[in-house]
């Protein structure tokens, strides 16, 4: 969807008198919108400059994009010569904490145990994506709320600390950022996502909660924003 919006915006902003260069991640969309200048990058969705932490690679992408400014007429559409694929099919090999407190659900225990790793990641990166609606300290309780949803509590009565999809995204960010610290490198695109949804207690809970919320009366209307579509096929039970 974003490449479509970027192509549209390029037309409008160029018409305002500025010069635009659009990066593209979905080639049919950029072909259809034919903005003045576009560089299609067959990179993972979410990574339009290709490689996080690789300034040299990113500068090569920018150089290829800005080279299009030298063209005398348009529309211009070129492809960056290198491609990068996501690795959602290969969940990140990332350690999980052992069970520690049997008095709480396993997913809550797990979320609590990942806090030091998340903290290291935040310190290393100098920021966090956690906090749209719940901060890191609130993540275990947010997971507990989804545990209740997965067990059958109506989602509106489960004590979710905010809009459910935003809460789920904060939980995802918390886990993925913890994974960054645990493996000490930036994983291939969507590998940490698959680690969360396919191997962790909380991933199973989120998928089970999604199933309950889809079947609720009334169903949760923003169900598509709870769990990535590619992870839903392995949806299961709590």
């Amino acid at each position, binding site marked *: 969807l974003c490449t479509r919006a970027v192509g549209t915006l390029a037309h409008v902003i*160029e018409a305002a008198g500025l010069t635009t260069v659009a990066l593209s991640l979905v080639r049919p969309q950029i072909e259809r919108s034919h903005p003045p200048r576009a560089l299609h990058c067959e990179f993972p969705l979410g990574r339009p400059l290709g490689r996080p932490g690789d300034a040299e690679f990113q500068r090569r992408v920018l150089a290829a994009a800005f080279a299009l400014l030298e063209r005398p007429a348009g529309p211009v559409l070129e492809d960056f010569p290198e491609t990068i694929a*996501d690795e959602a099919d290969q969940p990140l090999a990332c350690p999980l904490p052992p069970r520690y407190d049997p008095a709480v659900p396993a997913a809550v225990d797990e979320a609590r145990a990942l806090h030091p790793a998340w903290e290291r*990641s935040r310190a290393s990166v100098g*920021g966090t994506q956690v906090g*749209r609606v719940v901060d890191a300290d609130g993540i275990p309780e947010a997971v507990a709320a989804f545990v209740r949803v997965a067990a059958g509590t109506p989602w509106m009565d489960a004590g979710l600390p905010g*809009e459910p999809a*935003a809460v789920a995204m904060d939980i995802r960010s918390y886990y993925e950022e913890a994974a960054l610290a645990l493996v000490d490198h930036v994983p291939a695109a*969507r590998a940490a996502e698959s680690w969360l949804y396919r191997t962790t207690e909380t991933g199973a809970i989120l998928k089970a909660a999604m199933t309950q919320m889809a079947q609720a009366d009334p169903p949760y209307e923003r169900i598509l924003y709870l769990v990535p579509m590619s992870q839903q096929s392995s949806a299961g039970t709590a």
Partner: protein
Amino acid sequence: MADAEMRRMVADLPAPEFETTAFTSPPPLSEATVALVTTAGLMRPDAEWAPQEGNSGFKVFGREERDLVVGHQSTNFDRTGIAADRNVAYPIDRLEELAADGIIGTVAPRHLSFTGPVMDLTTLVIDSGPAAGALLRRDGVDVVLLTPV
């Protein structure tokens, strides 16, 4: 590969039709003021998050701002890359390096992030898109790099 599935799903979505494509001539890149426009749905950490579907507006960030959160609500793209290095979608540090090296003229004082996912493209065409262009013109911007997620 999850992205291949998504690309197939969105490949045939309609886009606004433009009968002509505007095409301007920029100044030399080494003299140009360059701005970023992304559709990552960036927001400040202390901003109140709200569902973004149906919202085709944008937020404005200063050249010096780095502590930004991806408010885009789609679950169907990688998040770890941006979490580890904002520049993979919002290459503000790369622009500063290019300016220091004299490859671009200067980095614009303000940069924009549209909400995500942008569903209503007609609003982009007649309302928020022109407003974004006007804002960037007032800032003396010559070249705009647009990045999707």
